[in-house]
């Protein structure tokens, strides 16, 4: 058992209430920051910690904070991105549902550091039940003088509100989120200007993921240098992983970054191995957008070293033989899963979720879905695989926001690592469409 920064008290009965949360050391960081530290000192601690954005991009949080423009007389905003919609990701929902005060504490301390007097938590609309849990906890915090005017007598004011989305993956992209928070369609904005200069209501804004914000209290309490000692290399601290698919123990696990992938998959402490005694086929280690890796490349790098659960190790080998840590959504495939079917499923997702603003994404995701659908359903053409590669290339890097890349990578990587499986579908359409049919390497077998 490694150190738990975010989930140490998550299973304590009543931790969702202010009383129990405070009994377990809750809101200490608010007292410490507001009474003994300047906002800039808090920012410095977060910079020192090496904390990287937990939403998927992995950009250093402290650095993002230091970009925030501070013009006189213009309000600044902190917006928490709780729009968790990346397929495979459910850590933020789990965390907010179980321990809402942890996020609120992080919001207060972080808002103070940024000089924001109004902050928002934008949560996906499907999680309305979590919104109600958060609102209840916020009401408790107001009543205890932890929110509102003159918090704990420090002279600092903060209002905190929760805003629901309406069911759109794209609103997890920070500028689409801001558009949505302003009551508009979730079309990502052109950058620059970046939100740090012109964000919510055209004011300087920081948008951070739930887990990033929730890591701040520990950093304030214990110091950035202590946080930086946890983890491995530039992957400091602990990270929540959402584990799903064909494993014995799906769920959310907080680990110190640097645990070997093999241990993570097979240890009873984490995923507990592949279910029903089956073999591992592939893993998508960071959410549906990141490249899929076959079993041999997920546990070892191309150079034969143990792959670790860290930003650097998971991306070792680039897109040729590596993937990304992303949002930490660890999706595991057993030997019975069809990669073509899964890739079609993801392509359908991205087509459905494309906002339609940029032609390469709007049209390209539709093409990919259509072509993958026909391959999966026994109508594939010989040239379809190259067509998919070409469409994916034309989307990647040619759109306003990263949804285009997110749509292209799963398709490109599935073909890179499982090309034979796609070819088999095209060459043997009648076998491939049988229920449960799966390509098993050279010894293709069919199970009905």
């Amino acid at each position: 058992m490694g150190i738990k920064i975010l989930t140490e008290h998550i299973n304590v009965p009543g931790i969702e209430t202010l009383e129990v949360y405070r009994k377990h050391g809750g809101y200490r960081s608010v007292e410490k920051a507001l009474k003994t530290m300047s906002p800039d000192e808090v920012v410095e601690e977060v910079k020192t910690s090496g904390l990287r954005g937990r939403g998927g991009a992995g950009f250093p949080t402290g650095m993002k904070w230091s970009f925030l423009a501070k013009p006189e007389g213009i309000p600044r905003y902190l917006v928490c991105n709780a729009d968790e919609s990346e397929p495979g990701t459910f850590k933020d929902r789990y965390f907010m549902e179980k321990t809402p005060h942890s996020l609120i504490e992080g919001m207060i301390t972080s808002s103070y550091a940024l000089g924001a007097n109004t902050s928002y938590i934008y949560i996906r609309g499907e999680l309305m039940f979590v919104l109600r849990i958060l609102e209840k906890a916020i009401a408790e915090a107001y009543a205890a003088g932890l929110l509102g005017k003159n918090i704990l007598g420090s002279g600092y004011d903060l209002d905190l509100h929760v805003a629901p989305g309406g069911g759109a993956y794209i609103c997890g992209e920070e500028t689409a989120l801001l558009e949505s928070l302003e009551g508009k369609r979730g079309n990502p904005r052109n950058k620059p200007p970046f939100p740090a200069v012109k964000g919510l209501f055209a004011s300087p804004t920081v948008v951070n993921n739930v887990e990033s914000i929730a890591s701040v209290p520990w950093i304030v309490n214990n110091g950035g240098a202590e946080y930086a000692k946890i983890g491995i290399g530039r992957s400091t601290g602990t990270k929540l992983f959402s584990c799903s698919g064909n494993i014995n123990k799906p769920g959310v696990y907080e680990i110190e970054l640097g645990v070997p992938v093999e241990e993570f998959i097979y240890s009873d402490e984490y995923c507990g191995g592949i279910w029903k005694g089956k073999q591992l086929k592939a893993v998508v280690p960071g959410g549906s957008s990141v490249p899929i890796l076959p079993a041999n490349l997920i546990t070892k790098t191309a150079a034969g070293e143990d792959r670790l659960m860290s930003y650097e190790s998971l991306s070792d080998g680039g897109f040729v033989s590596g993937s990304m840590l992303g949002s930490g959504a660890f999706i595991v495939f057993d030997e019975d899963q069809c990669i073509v079917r899964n890739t079609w499923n993801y392509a359908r997702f991205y087509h459905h979720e494309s906002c339609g603003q940029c032609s390469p994404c709007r049209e390209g995701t539709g093409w990919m879905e259509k072509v993958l659908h026909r391959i999966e359903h026994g109508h594939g053409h010989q040239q379809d695989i190259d067509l998919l590669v070409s469409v994916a290339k034309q989307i990647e890097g040619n759109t306003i926001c990263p949804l285009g890349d997110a749509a292209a990578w799963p398709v490109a990587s599935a073909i890179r690592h499982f090309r034979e499986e796609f070819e088999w579908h095209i060459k043997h359409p009648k076998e491939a469409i049988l229920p449960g049919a799966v390509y098993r390497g050279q010894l293709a077998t069919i199970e009905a």
Partner: protein
Amino acid sequence: MPETTDDNYKMAETINEVKFSDAGMAEIQRYISHYPEGRQKSAILPIMHVAQAEFGGWLSPQVMDKIAEILNIQPIEVYEVATFYTMFNLKPVGKHVLEVCRTGPCCLRGADQVIDMLKEKLNIEEGETTADGMFTLKPVECLASCGTGPMLQVREKFYENIDSEEKLDQFLETMRNTEVETPYHQAN
């Protein structure tokens, strides 16, 4: 059930007056108060959620016009938002809308089979409503419940680990005996 936009309008015309409950209106005002002066439009998504809960699970043109009136914006500004976000139903729906996750991680644990079983048991296709008006089948994308799939959502509740036919039957039976409640009535 109406199939065309015209049908929707005809059906909607039978609604005499769009009037939110007092609790619903209080909820709307509370959301509006969260935003700075002149930025009241920001509250449009939460208001649409309240409206959908109050008026039978969908947004009729009349309801959307009412929202425009409350926010003092043009009706088109409500329509363009309502059509962008998938949680808002623009056609009448059944009493319980079964929003089944159909995305990758849930499919690894049998979501496709759950959708097929629902089609067969309810004798409807995706997007359709049962003849008795009880259920609408609406497959949706990832609901952040991948560790507990297959799963589905009905209004504000998640029903998770629906991994056998027995559990699905049990769920349907429960829903048949479940009345629709507006959640903020309890919250306030």
